């Protein structure tokens, strides 16, 4: 645990309000590069809201007020002159429900490149192939790239969404319960994928599945009622948590 190094993502004294609802309370947390951090906690505790801070997805909700610092490689993504599109390109996101665009498989993966101004056909083709391979989907779709993405199964769609996010070469991946809408087999494929991806990316993952959190993450943050209760190495959190509330949640006594 080398804390000298600048964290890839960090929040300091972060507070977020939805209107009068104080959804995140004074959260300070740093995430080192190439770590997988799991955010756990009961529904409505603010972990998805926290995740969405980092690619400014909360901006689209009316009445959101954010105080404190949200840093990406040391730069505040809200206060500095970083363009929101640039932040989102560097910090990719995979959603709970697979959300492929109603376009072909190829167009889905190429979309992020095209909106970011890439027009070199050869480069786009190579990137699409590379991204689909990284997302462990290439073998299944290489002959049907021109077909609609909506024809894929749920698990394939989710891997397509991961490939789509990887194509714009982010350094961070935010994953909001990426396997919760999938069957166990597809879910375990996504987990294997996260295991592969953590070699290259910093990953922040929200999950309700304790085994999943324990299996894939290096560190775990437990959120409860908008507060960060405990943040430590995953082993520590699951074997010997400092807080009783963490213990109770992990062992299923509430939440």
């Amino acid at each position, binding site marked *: 645990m080398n804390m000298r190094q600048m964290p890839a993502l960090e929040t300091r004294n972060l507070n977020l309000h939805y209107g009068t609802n104080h959804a995140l309370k004074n959260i300070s947390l740093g995430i080192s590069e190439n770590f997988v951090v799991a955010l756990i906690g009961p529904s409505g505790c603010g972990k998805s809201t926290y995740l969405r801070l980092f690619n400014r*997805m909360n901006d689209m909700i009316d009445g959101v007020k954010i105080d404190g610092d949200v840093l990406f490689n040391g730069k505040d993504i809200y206060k500095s002159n970083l363009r929101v*599109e640039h932040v989102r390109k560097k910090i990719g996101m995979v959603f709970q429900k697979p959300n492929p665009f*109603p376009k072909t498989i190829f167009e889905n993966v190429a979309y*992020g490149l095209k*909106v970011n101004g890439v027009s070199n056909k050869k480069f786009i083709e190579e990137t699409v192939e590379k991204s689909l391979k990284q997302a462990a989907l290439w073998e299944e779709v290489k002959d049907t790239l021109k077909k609609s993405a909506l024809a894929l199964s749920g698990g394939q769609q989710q891997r397509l969404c991961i490939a789509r996010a990887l194509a714009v070469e982010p350094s961070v991946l935010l994953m909001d319960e990426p396997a919760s809408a999938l069957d166990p087999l597809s879910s375990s494929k996504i987990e294997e994928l996260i295991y592969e991806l953590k070699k290259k990316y910093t990953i922040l993952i929200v999950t309700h599945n304790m085994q999943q959190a324990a299996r894939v993450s290096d560190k775990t943050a437990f959120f409860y009622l908008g507060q960060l209760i405990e943040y430590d190495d995953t082993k520590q959190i699951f074997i010997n948590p400092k807080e009783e509330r963490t213990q109770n949640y992990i062992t299923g006594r509430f939440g």
Partner: protein
Amino acid sequence: MNGSSTLLPVSETTEKNRSPFSFSREAYVVTREKVVHAILMLCALVSVFTTLGIILVLLFQTIEFFKEVPIINFLTDTQWTPLFQDKHFGIMPLLSGTLLTSLIALSVSVPLGLIIAIYLSEYAPSFLRKLLKPFLEVLAGIPTIVYGYFALITVTPLLQNIFPSLSGFNALSPGIVMGIMILPLVTSLSEDALRMVPKGLREGGYALGASKLQVSLSIVFPSAFSGIVASVILAFSRAIGETMIVAIAAGQLPNLTANPLQPVATMTSYIVQVSQGDTPYGTLAYNTIFAVAITLFIFTFLLNIISFRLRKKYFSMGGD
């Protein structure tokens, strides 16, 4: 169990000390439900019978018409002069007039309507949307006769400044005004279609670094496409059936032309002309309006079916 004569007293006496499982109370409720059901069904059937009645009347009179005029003349003759000495019964001039005015209307309402719809659904803050929508819907509430005079007295003279060769009655002016009239239809149905696009798709676009315009045009718009096409077709059908505006401002002159600066007659305005004139009932000239009406009916009916199909397809896949 079904003593209907005892219903009233029973319901009165049981009001005070009724048990929920009182036998006669139950009979009363069952009968009442049946009566209500029957009344409601009769009301619903009125619309079915009305439609059937209209189709039958149209059909019988049209058959009378085609006993005297071969259908091939009706479809291929290029003149429509049933009220003159030299009678011709070609539907084409009326069809061209109808399509010309309708297409002008669409060329106004589709681009403008879609831009407004995208603005309202993707860009406008909610307070502005709540303010703007009622204004748009007022457009739909203006009587078409007012639109007609607006076309004739205001829009035509304005256009004559631009096109000096524009005749006092023409296809262009009522076409444009009709476009304004169907604007709320295009806008509101397209906006519905755009707003039905799941939020997750928009977020997926934003998460890849797309701008608002890119998300609106390359994700939301294509996803709502079938719903938008349905709204355009419905607006087309509405324009084809529109009567008052074209009857007042287009000139009622059956004229096989694609020139919007000339006067034309549409199917609807011809029907107005005959049914208000002194054409005797039962004559061939009189029966022409039924042949025209059924042509009009077939057009709007087909367009409505296509629109309905597309909307159904859209809603079955768009729901989140």
